[in-house]
């Protein structure tokens, strides 16, 4: 009895808080799907399949973390898919030109961080909406990528295989990256001044400025960090696919922003929890895996993903005032 009421109190507290309540709902939705899948097919609940899902969502999850940070600061980066493509293609091109894995990856990461920083600098200097600035930059980065590839598929070096390797034949290396990135981002957002400033800017830019936050500098850091995360996502994709092309990151734009939104990050900024984004990513991965296992045509998967995004927005706006 006492335990029950304490449980209810805890639940009430969680439901009162917007971000934790959304995470709870996400967890429940995820559990329902997983339980359903366990009964629907015996191929779902197998270590191999679970690890498959996790490997498949690695790049998405890392890009989603970047998108979440940018959105928490009140911005958005539409170039995320293009940065992944550009960075991957540059790396593959260097490998093709005979450079070693190390230098190629280094330059690929620099390209990604550079593109992110450039986005941030342009947004800060133009004082324009991040949406418009990055919309324009999408085209710039696409053009650059095509210049690098000449429209061809670029093979990666045969030594660049970490994305397909597993530890002890079970744990895929990308999953370790995914975990490391999420722990690092969690730490940055929660325990560093940079993270706190990022929330502050997104929540109330005016008050943030008056509290002594250097808004412009901080925003550029946010976009640069996003670029770095996209670089990691790109390297993992490149080594998994063992080749790069100019559209390799395109599908991630929609999915990464979806993962952040499903996870409770708002476009208006200032709110959001990185674990929510993680659950959002897993939800997208599990649903797409489930639909595959149930042999649902991929056309329907688009419809389902879209419906989930809209549904998540509905849920997260329950209780907020409407006009």
């Amino acid at each position, binding site marked *: 009895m006492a335990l029950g009421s304490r449980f209810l109190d805890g639940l009430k507290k969680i439901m009162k808080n917007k971000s934790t309540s959304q995470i709870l709902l996400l967890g429940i939705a995820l559990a329902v799907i997983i339980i359903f899948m366990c009964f629907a097919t015996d191929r779902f609940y197998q270590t191999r399949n679970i690890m498959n899902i996790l490997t498949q969502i690695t790049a998405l999850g890392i890009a989603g973390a970047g998108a979440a940070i940018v959105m928490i600061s009140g911005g958005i980066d539409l170039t995320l898919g293009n940065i992944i493509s550009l960075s991957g293609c540059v790396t593959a091109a260097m490998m093709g030109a005979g450079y070693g894995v190390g230098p190629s990856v280094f330059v690929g990461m620099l390209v990604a961080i550079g593109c992110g920083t450039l986005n941030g600098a342009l947004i800060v200097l133009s004082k324009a909406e991040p949406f418009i600035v990055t919309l324009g930059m999408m085209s710039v980065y696409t053009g650059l990528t095509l210049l690098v590839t000449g429209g061809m598929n670029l093979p990666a070096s045969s030594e660049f295989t970490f994305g397909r390797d597993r530890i002890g034949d079970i744990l895929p290396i990308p999953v370790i990256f995914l975990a490391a990135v999420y722990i690092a981002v969690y730490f940055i957002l*929660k*325990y*560093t*001044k*940079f*993270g*706190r*400033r990022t*929330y*502050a800017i997104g*929540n*109330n830019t*005016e*008050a*943030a*400025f*008056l*509290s*002594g*936050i*250097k808004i412009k500098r901080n925003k550029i850091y946010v976009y640069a960090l996003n670029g770095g995360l996209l670089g990691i996502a790109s390297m993992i994709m490149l080594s998994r696919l063992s080749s790069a092309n100019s559209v390799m990151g395109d599908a991630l734009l929609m999915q990464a922003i979806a993962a952040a939104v499903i996870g409770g990050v708002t476009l208006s900024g*200032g*709110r959001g929890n990185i674990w929510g984004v993680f659950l959002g990513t897993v939800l997208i991965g599990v649903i797409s895996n489930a639909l595959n296992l149930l042999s649902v045509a991929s056309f329907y998967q688009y419809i389902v993903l879209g419906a989930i995004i809209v549904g998540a927005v509905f849920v997260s706006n329950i209780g907020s005032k409407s006009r």
Partner: protein
Amino acid sequence: MIKDKDLPPPYNRTMNKKASDIVVHVEDCTKSFSGVTVFDRVSFDLVAGEIHCLVGENGAGKSTFIKILSGAYVPDSGRVFICGKEVKNFNPDVLKAMGVQTIYQNQFLMPDLSVAENIFMGDFAAGKKGFMNYKKLVEEAEKVLAETEMDIDPTRMLGELDITERQAVQIARSLAQEAKVLILDEPTASYGKREKTALLKLVKKIAAKGIGVIYISHHLDEVFELADRVTIIRDGKKIACYERDEITEQQLIRDMVGRDADLFYKREAVQLKDGLLEVKGLYKKNYIEPASFTMCRGEILGIGGMVGSGRTELVSLLFGVVSPDGGEVLINGTDVTSKDPYTAIKNGICLITEDRQHSGMFLDHSVGWNFVSAIINKEKGMLLRQQKENKVLEDYIGRIQIKTQGPEQEIRFLSGGNQQKVVLSKWLHTNAEVVIFDEPTKGIDIGAKEDVYKLMLELAHEGKFIIMISSDMPELVALSDRVLIMKERRLVAELSGSDINEEKILTASIGG
């Protein structure tokens, strides 16, 4: 209907007006908000062709009155007649339809549309259903513009006009909607001398056409230039109504002040300490004229003046919200001029802004979260130690009695007074030498007010430099060691000792 015999004596006698000339008649109007009466049994009349000026301190109830007349507020009791018809349904559209037009500064004007389109914005009545008839629009616009006697081509883009012409367009817009009553709220607040003269001329012309004008201004020179009659409001009550010839500036100001001395907070004296804050010729073009003053440690320096006189702008320069063009700020000879808030905080300056909701708090986050939002930008280091800071916050919670469940509670659930205390703690925690308050007790209850005053005195004891902007006259008079007065973006007077009283402050703030 109002009959001739119902008219109060002054104006059926001296002005020789008939009842049918009365365009606004207000009887015993009262309005209160959550138990506080802000407008108390006021009666008021406006005759066609008359310019009736409304004067009073900040917060005396002028805006409330305008909002009732324009339909934004519904009075709790009392009656309002427009052109003899009683207003039953208070709502902006109804009042507009009855002929009451209110003009705020540059409201609803679209710079990228033509003058004619601006004049008929919202009802392009000249056109057939759904379609624009530009020719007719321009013709109609020419007609109403002619009424203002300003030479404006209706096909010009509004953005090309100067501010007097824009004002004329707004007035023309009101005329197009068949205004019987025109309300002008502080129309000259940001005007230079030349524009002001042009506007006053325009207002007189409009009145001469038989439109009743209610004119609100903080500038007594304008009032004496324009008014046929002047009504004085204080603490939501109508104090007096005079014909222009019956009154002097001194009498006007005396009527605007005159509070009971019991209302004033009684502060203890604080020994001033060595240490000097010097502001020398601090200015920014088109923002603040060069300002200079000095103050001692432990002093509370009040800044008075009417809303819009440049008080907030002056402290914005001190705190670096806006980077100054020139001048310097020194603490004991050390340069602390700040180009942005970051530098200002490092220099030991802090600013508690007037608008907590908009610029003081992070509403989505907790009390503790808000508490550290400034200190993290002053101290070095990358890491955030929220738990450690929360312990410090607990001290503040006890010391200045913040009513909260603790550092984890979201700040939005606190009352206004307690939110203000959290904001205060946030800034005190940065250990600032110069503490600037912009309207420190706006929108907070009496008990919390006293707590804020006590805290200010405590800070004075500690030897801080305290600068306080206040529109709350008793607060300004009771707490300040000295008062600087701002008017039209410059410092115009300094009052100290027994000169700090309502009458002197108002004379310096609005006198001609």
